[in-house]
């Protein structure tokens, strides 16, 4: 009985995978980008969804099982997944995706990072030594990561290299055009003061010229406290913000509280692919983000 089960398992293992590249992406935005570049030549698994805080995932059994079979692991990097990903990689028994191998890709390595701390001290909260890891909300970063990712996918799956490069070029063209459109649409957002729940929107703000005047978390990774929210409320007199931004995985309570006291809108942004019904892919993510921001600023 055991022997038959075992041989069945071995047979399953030996079956040729229908996809050429088996990709394990830690977050939905990079899973989406892999899909744009890889099309039907890749099988993509996203370790998290838009409602999960990527900082706080556990190295659960399903993640180990998926990482075991991946040819390429795409991480956000800059320590975003430090609480769980190193363990998943080590315990996967998969030599291809270990850090330093071609099968290990960290998106944050290919862009200029913001908020790189000069002092590392947990008294400042759970700060990431390598800078703010939420890089994808500047669409120009998506392009840089895409270029590097296409090259990596081409390296790992040489027979399809041309297809990956062509798909990336097609995507890049459309993406450039979209950036032009988004920038035109968002002109009115320049200089608008905003409050944010967590420092998840730094790149979006830098790109659009939003002015972050306060954070609901007293320190990154520390939950909003009533005292801190009170001080934000007091600051609203001298430096009023126009809206409060949060992701789909942040609790809505603190934003709603400020909104109720000040009358400014609490805005949920999709943050990543799948965060709202409209954010079905990367294009939808930015279309919807801008729409929600514009609606709030009106």
């Amino acid at each position, binding site marked *: 009985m055991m022997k038959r089960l075992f041989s069945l*398992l071995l047979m399953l*293992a030996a079956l040729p995978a229908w996809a050429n590249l088996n990709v394990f992406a830690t977050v939905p935005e990079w899973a989406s980008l892999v899909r744009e570049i890889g099309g039907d030549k890749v099988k993509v698994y996203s370790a*998290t*969804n838009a*409602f*999960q*805080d990527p900082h*706080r*995932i*556990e*190295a*659960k*059994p*399903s993640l180990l*099982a998926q990482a*075991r*079979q991946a040819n390429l692991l795409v991480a956000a990097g800059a*320590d975003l997944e*430090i*609480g769980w*990903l*190193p*363990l998943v990689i*080590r*315990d*996967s*028994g*998969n*030599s291809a995706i*270990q*850090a330093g191998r071609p099968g290990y890709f960290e998106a944050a*390595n*290919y*862009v*200029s*990072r*913001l*908020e*790189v701390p000069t002092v590392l001290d*947990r008294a400042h909260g*759970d700060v990431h*030594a*390598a*800078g703010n890891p939420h890089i994808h909300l500047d669409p120009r970063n998506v392009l*840089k990561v895409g270029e590097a990712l296409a090259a990596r996918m081409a390296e790992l799956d040489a027979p399809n290299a041309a297809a990956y490069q062509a798909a990336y*070029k097609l995507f*890049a*063209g*459309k993406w*450039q*055009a979209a*950036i*032009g459109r988004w920038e035109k649409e968002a002109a009115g957002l320049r200089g608008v003061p905003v409050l944010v729940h967590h420092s998840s929107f*730094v790149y979006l703000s*830098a790109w659009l010229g939003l002015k972050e005047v306060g954070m609901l978390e007293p320190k990154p*990774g*520390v*939950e909003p406290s009533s005292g801190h929210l009170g001080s934000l409320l007091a600051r609203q007199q001298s430096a009023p913000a126009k809206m409060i931004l949060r992701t789909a*995985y942040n*609790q809505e309570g603190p934003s709603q509280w400020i909104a109720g006291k000040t009358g400014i809108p609490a805005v949920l942004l999709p943050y990543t692919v799948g965060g709202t019904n409209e954010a079905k892919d990367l294009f939808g993510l930015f279309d919807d983000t801008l729409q929600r921001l514009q609606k709030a600023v009106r």
Partner: protein
Amino acid sequence: MHKPFAMAALLAASCGAQAATDSDLAAIRSQIDEMKKTYEQRIASLEQKLAQAESHKGESKAVPVATQSPAPETVPANRAGTPASSFNPEVSLILQGQYKDMKNGAGRGITGFIPAGGHDHGSGAIEGINKRGFSVDHTELVFAANIDPNWRGQAIIAAVDGKAEVEEAWFQSLGIGHGIGLKGGRFRSGIGYLNEQHPHTWDFADAPLMYQAMFGTEGGYAQDGIQLKWLAPTPLFLEFGAEFGRGANFPGSDRNKNGSGGGAVFAHLGGDVGEANNWRAGLSYLKTSARERESVFRDVGGLEAQGFFAGDSATWLADFVWKWAPNGNPKYQNFKFQSEYFVRREDGNMTCKDENAVGNACAAEVTGTYRTRQSGWYAQGIYQFTPNWRAGLRYEQLDSGTRDFGINAANLAVDAYKPKKSTAMVDYSWSEFSRVRLQFAQDKSMQGVTENQITMQYIMSLGAHGAHKF
């Protein structure tokens, strides 16, 4: 400078073959514009840098960058933010201490079970089992780093009142592939669920009675040896492991011997049910052999006697964990249920002695057969209802089962008892790195004694972000 033009040419060539639509052309144009812009920016910034370098030539001090500038600081692409060092390990320090309120229990132990390492007094006493009031029970120093592309190493030094011991010191493979993982050194065994977890990750201030009965108050079995694991390439998590080692720890004993003194095998199965639920189940088997394993007994007259066991000890463990979090996001709210069961058989001979010459029934050494079959289990649930607060309940019960002492049954007291304990806890975490816990337990692990224990505990983690197991 040739690169943008070459790329533009390539782009034009690749798109020329297709029927170019207006939007495609617009896209290409904007892309070329973007490229021009970025290259112009790069050249401008390089020129600026050059000018700066020239103007600062000869200056020894770096000019501080204005921090109030509207553009935040950035790190250039492709460069890690950490300084270069030939040895740059992840270092963390765990501070753990408590205040404990309980009875002054002489002869504290678990009725019907042989305690690992004797009992609370005399030689071979169990460290700290009877410590009341304030105490620093555990200070752990952890070093970990990749050794080279193929290996990773970790050492945990635990400091407990006046002595430091190597709790774990192992290396682990990174590059074997095919789902194979190899670990060597001193490590917490992969048997059971809680066994691999360090005290600072426990949900309660103490180990379950089950673990204390199996392995002593440290609540875990560690092995000096090697561990081999294989993760199956299946969508369902399926892992097999085997360990061989010295087997020096209870229920085994240390001795001068070639070969392996203890071994274990285990299998784990796990997966997701929807987005919100994850589970893992495991089955493990631990086999150790003992020579001259000393334990303290009571003779039929209530005097202390020493028993020396030689034989085999075989333990089966079954474990199960279920975790729930809304949308799979455990940050704000989550629930964890875990339960483990064990059954242990020991088979061999025992010599009863009167080492301290107290005049017990074994004044003349008596050697007889020794056979036991004992079992136990615990179940616990932990609910995190806000990001900061958690509350939990644990119930546990052991069964002293069959205890056949052979001819020593005439000399030693053979207790039959079912120790029970109920525990409730609530803890508060300011962040992932700091936690205080209040625990209340009703302990009926000693026959005829119902003890209420109150524990107030803190756990503080400094340094590197250690990733914790599922």
